[in-house]
């Protein structure tokens, strides 16, 4: 189903309309089975990559145009023992997404239910979304002559059909927990940190990052040690809106200054001429 058709359908289903889709991803529960990666590829019919052995077991090593989510493998010392730290990469579905705000053609949009989705038929391929995304999520089909942006869409089609996203459905350990409320997931995350002293690094990644996201991450160690960018709390679209909202004022000033200087300099020239005569 095309995304436009999906958007039209949302208007008709009140239960879906009220939803505020959210993931709580508790990486301490992850066993690195990569079931989420596989189900994501299956549902979205994304092909496979030819990969080579890297320094870690992360495979594919990065998100790409055919990989909306992957599990990153990190080894570290935790409480004196070597442990695996798994982390899940993917779109955070920001509350105020930078990608959607910079898109000149509304190809990327924040849906009322939370997912940030992409409408390929509008995209002209400027790739400003890729630059703007603080999490480096949107990927491009560089090899194609008619390329599109590719990224996780929170299984928007499944949500509208009353199902939870494919990755959450597959996860055997409850690492990826779906909720129809960000608030509920946030409360749960805080509860887990409070009830398990020492188990978690005391930071809910996504609570404040980029002004808050729909995906919340918990981990045993700081998230920048498992591949997540350090992102400020600033709502990014506000930074550009400050400039754009000032444009009417700039127009007024330039017009006034332009007309003013034209009138004044012309009179001065005329006065000079009169003096000469």
């Amino acid at each position, binding site marked *: 189903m095309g995304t436009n058709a999906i958007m039209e359908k949302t208007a008709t289903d009140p239960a879906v309309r009220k939803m505020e889709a959210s993931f709580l991803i508790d990486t301490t529960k992850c066993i690195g089975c990569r079931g989420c990666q596989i189900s994501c590829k299956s549902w979205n019919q994304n092909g496979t990559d030819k990969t080579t052995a890297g320094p870690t077991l992360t495979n594919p090593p990065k998100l790409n145009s055919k990989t909306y989510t992957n599990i990153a493998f990190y080894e570290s010392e935790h409480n004196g023992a070597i442990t695996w730290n798994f982390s899940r990469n993917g779109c955070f579905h920001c509350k105020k997404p930078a990608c959607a705000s910079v898109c000149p053609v509304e190809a990327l949009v924040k849906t009322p239910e939370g997912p940030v989705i992409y409408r390929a038929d509008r995209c002209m391929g400027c790739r400003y979304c890729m*630059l703007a995304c603080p999490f480096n999520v949107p990927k491009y089909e560089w090899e194609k002559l*008619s390329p599109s942006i590719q990224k996780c869409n929170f299984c928007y089609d499944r949500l509208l059909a009353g199902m939870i996203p494919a990755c959450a459905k597959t996860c055997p350990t409850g690492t990826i927990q779906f909720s129809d409320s960000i608030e509920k997931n946030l409360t749960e995350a805080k509860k887990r940190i409070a009830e398990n002293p020492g188990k978690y690094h005391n930071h809910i990644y996504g609570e404040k990052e980029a002004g808050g996201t729909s995906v919340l991450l918990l981990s045993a160690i700081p998230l920048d040690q498992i591949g997540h960018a350090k992102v400020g709390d600033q709502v990014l679209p506000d930074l550009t809106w400050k400039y754009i909202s000032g444009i009417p004022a700039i127009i007024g000033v330039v017009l006034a200054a332009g007309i003013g200087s034209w009138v004044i300099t012309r009179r001065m020239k005329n006065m000079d001429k009169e003096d000469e005569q």
Partner: protein
Amino acid sequence: MSTERHEIKMFTPMTLGLLILIIAGAVSVYKRMTLGLGATTNLQDDFPWGFWIGFDVLGGVAMAAGGFVIASAVYLFNMKKYKPIARPAILTAFLGYLLAASGIFLDIGHPFRIWHPVVMWQIHSIMFIVAIHVVIYTTVLAMESSPMFFERIGLKGVQRFVEKIMMPIALFGTLLSTLHQSSLGAVYLIVPDKLHPLWYSSLLPFSFLVSAIMMGLSMVSFESILSSKFFKHKADMSILSGLARGSIVAIGFYFVLKIFILLSGPGLGAAFAGTMESRLYLLEMAVGVIVPLILLLLPSVRNSMGSIFLVNCFVIVGIVINRMNVSIFGLLRHAQERGVSYFPTGNEFMVTLFLVALGIFLFKFACKYFNVLSYGEVKN
């Protein structure tokens, strides 16, 4: 006076060189269009914008600023002294914008959807603001350049009419340029976590505007001197020293602005941290700002065509370095943290060379067949 353009020779070694570059570059353009971005550029997921955005778009648009600077001097400030350089300045701006628009056309993944922003408005997007300005301002520049075309084909009445309404056209052009130059800086406001603090600032739009004015003044002067060498057209020294005096004001202001941004942002230490970024920052400041400012403050420099030419080169190169720093080098650190780097492919360079050579060729062509260089001198 107007017979002078007939002395411009079209078949020279320079023209031949330009034609070779155009043909060789056309092959690279063809490759880009038939093989795609991945096969012909080093752009990648962690570095989506490269040399074409940095040089062709940001550099090209800044180089075009001479058009609105001179148009507002002549038509808004009534400085008739500069009328002889109005036509070449506006023509350069027109060609600069065509360069930028062609750069965007080749850079975007779907070149033939370049018109999408014009119908699919999204006013929260700086890219939308930028796109609309490119479209409208290129039209305005075409109108500002049209009198010499009408003059050439003998439509004197139309020419006089367009010249009569030049003041509102120039005012509109100045407005669009102010917004467009600054909005190109505003493009980078959204990446506070990615762009190096030496360049990231909430004042980016303003600093892009001021540096574009500097660049515009230098480009116009640079061009007048080159025209005098190549086209045997005599450059007016009083115009050149006037532009140089204007440059002192613009560069002085920009210097204060850049120091303010540095001190209120990352601090003086960041400029001397010994990193790649700090060296590039110092290079940009030395070449584009400090050396030209010191030179221009010497009266002997302001009165010598050769010295003014040298200063112009410094400013142009310095501002291009600034645009490359913002669009490429300032973002490299972030990309390197993600394990990638970026250096343009030969194909990317060739496409840019193609556009630049085409621009210079078209300028020469226009000087030969239209009254570009000798307009407005009769009154002096």
